[in-house]
């Protein structure tokens, strides 16, 4: 059976305050080996997961934000960030990590993984999924 399913990982929670962001990322990395159609959505406080400049030494926890930059190497290329969620939280795209992947169809040109989408666009994306693990 070689059915390809559409998996959307929905991230709605901030990092560090709870473990969901970190353990969700662990699922995405394992899931990347399964050759499914994978997307990630960052909405609500989930957008904080992608903030750049995270430095966790003083709280004694592991900084796992560099792992987001490795998603491209795992062939995770569709990362949706909701514009309205960013704006409500006083953030702009400049506050976020710059995530890229190499497009093998275009001579491995580096391309942006993050797409900034409106709430309405994200609703459409959600509606097309088969499996929606949430954390």
């Amino acid at each position, binding site marked *: 059976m070689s059915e390809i399913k559409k998996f959307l990982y*929905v991230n*709605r929670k901030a990092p560090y305050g709870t473990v*969901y962001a970190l353990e969700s990322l662990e699922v995405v990395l394992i899931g990347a080996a399964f050759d499914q159609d994978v997307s990630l959505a960052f*909405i*609500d406080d989930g957008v904080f997961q992608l903030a750049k400049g995270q430095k966790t030494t003083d709280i004694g926890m592991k900084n796992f934000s560099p792992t987001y930059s490795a998603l491209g190497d795992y062939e995770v290329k569709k990362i949706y960030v909701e514009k309205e969620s960013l704006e409500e939280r006083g953030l702009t795209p400049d506050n976020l990590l710059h995530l890229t992947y190499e497009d093998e169809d275009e001579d491995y040109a580096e391309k942006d993984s993050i797409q900034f989408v409106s*709430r309405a666009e*994200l*609703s*459409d994306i*959600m*509606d*097309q*999924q*088969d*499996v*929606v693990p*949430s*954390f």
Partner: protein
Amino acid sequence: MAMLHTVNKSPFERNSFDSCLSHAKAGSSILLFEDGIYAVVKGSSASGKIQKASGVSIYALGPDLKARGIGEDQIIGGVTVVDYGGFVDLVTRHDSVQSWL
């Protein structure tokens, strides 16, 4: 496609319900359970929001209403009360399920 959204958090404590409402497309359904059922209490600040959601079917889990002492006379119109079997039917009748945790 038609999606089933589930919300298990109080609409007064968390933003899950608001966020779910603003993402649910017409033709989809929302099942409220656990502390999520408080959203359908008549006269509450949350129930007004539901009545504005057009084209979305609203369900509430009866066992959770009963546990919390919320009588069916206390809930707004247009809400279908289901039991766990009805929860299962909602899952199988929709194409996919998204939990707003």
